[in-house]
């Protein structure tokens, strides 16, 4: 007899293989990959940034395939819109891979995928968990002769988890979203930062627009508070005047 499904979650699981598992995963990839793409285009680097596309890494064996959440390839000019990435056609594996953790991938991201990435020669492998429920928010590994070795992550006094990516030439910083940010993004944000200035790289439209909106909101609240205070002062003055000099 078939087992009866126990809950709505089992009957309608979030994971169906194809879409993102949740909004946190989508927006983490959206923001991180978008920032890198704009940054390298601006610098004129031959960088190819792609998300959620298939890589075949062994000629002759179509079962050797993997889908990184984000990958970056350097030094291969002229790559256009590409369907699946065939390592033997491009001539090398991507240089950088980021996996964004989600409930069903926590095991795969830690154990299965890194061995495939090491086998194909991905220089740096990073893992980011926007919920930080299952693992630490940020972990990075560098390919050495014996497989991946961890990249040191530093906890700064302001709570930022920061580590250096040699391949990207950037610092990667995981920080907690401030209250008031959108819950759909997750609890933690991953921002690439300039190594010299330590500034977050601009997120072309989103981040600036959000910062502007947050500032406008603060301004509006201050204006409202000031207006309310002025009104109270005016009322007090009017009240005092109405009582007249005798009171």
């Amino acid at each position, binding site marked *: 007899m078939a087992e009866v499904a126990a809950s*709505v979650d089992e*009957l*309608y*699981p*979030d*994971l*169906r*293989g*194809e*879409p*993102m*598992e*949740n*909004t*946190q995963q*989508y*927006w983490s990839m*959206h923001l991180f*990959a*978008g920032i890198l*793409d*704009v940054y390298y*285009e*601006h610098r004129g680097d031959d960088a*190819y*940034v*792609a*998300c*959620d*596309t*298939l890589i*075949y890494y062994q000629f002759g064996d*179509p079962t050797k*395939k993997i*889908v990184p959440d984000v990958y970056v390839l350097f030094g291969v000019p*002229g*790559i*256009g*819109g*590409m*369907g*699946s990435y*065939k390592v033997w056609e491009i001539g090398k594996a991507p240089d950088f891979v980021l996996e964004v953790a989600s409930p069903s991938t926590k095991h795969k991201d830690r154990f299965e995928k890194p061995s495939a990435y090491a086998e194909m020669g991905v220089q740096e492998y990073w893992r980011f968990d926007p919920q930080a429920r299952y693992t630490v928010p940020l972990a990075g590994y560098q390919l050495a002769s014996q497989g991946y070795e961890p990249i040191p992550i530093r906890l700064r006094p302001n709570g930022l988890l920061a580590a250096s990516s040699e391949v990207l030439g950037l610092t990667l910083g995981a920080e907690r979203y401030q209250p008031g940010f*959108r*819950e*759909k*993004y*997750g609890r933690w944000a991953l921002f690439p930062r300039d190594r010299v200035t330590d500034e977050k790289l601009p*997120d*072309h*439209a*989103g981040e*600036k*627009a*959000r910062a502007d*909106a947050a500032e*406008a*909101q603060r301004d509006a609240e201050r204006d409202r508070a000031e207006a309310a205070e002025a009104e109270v002062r005016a009322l007090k003055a009017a009240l005092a005047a109405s009582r007249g000099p005798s009171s």
Partner: protein
Amino acid sequence: MAQLPISIAELYPSLRGDPKEGSQHWWGIVSFAGALDAHYWGREDAYVTGDQLIYYELGDPTKKIVADAIVVLGVPGLGAMGAYRVWEIGKAPDLAFDVVLPNTKRKHLLEVPRAYAAMGVRECWRFYPEAEGTAALAGYRLERGVCWPMPVVAMPNGAVVGCSKVLGMFLEAERLRPGARPAHGAWGLFLRDVATDEPLPDPLGKEKHRAREPSEQRGALAAVGTVGCR
């Protein structure tokens, strides 16, 4: 006997159901969802997200579809979510957006609009980043289970423009000039607020690869707005 695969493309297909069919697919979603997400900042009742699984009939888990991006208006407090279950949210998304590449074209002709119509999506738009000719954009208004095509007009500069009533925005598909990243596709999609006439910033900064607007464009654009949005 099992059939032998005949080509590399068959042996290593780009489309496997789960990942994206190509880089253009992802970047098309980012342009649309990112621009709107920034635009709606501060509006609690406007929700945008990408690559979203939707279940649209309680009791039938096979009734599901993945939209590349959705916009939900008038439901405050939507936050992080896994799958979108229409009966939990209380309504279908108001708008669905899909990026269509050659392999998924067929699915988008019938199956996808049918599902959107069944669940009550008010408008759906399709963007073809590798379109040849002028069919880079198509929009449908869904009423009582029937899809009605929205007017999409070719502009003097070659852009293809439609007007979304749900968003109050022009969707402008435009062939990108040389110098744009090929990974983003041959066409770019841009949004413009109908009320203010202001373009929304593109999350990937693709504005610099747009063609100039000839002066007669403004009149043509206003005509699209009149037909599609009012």
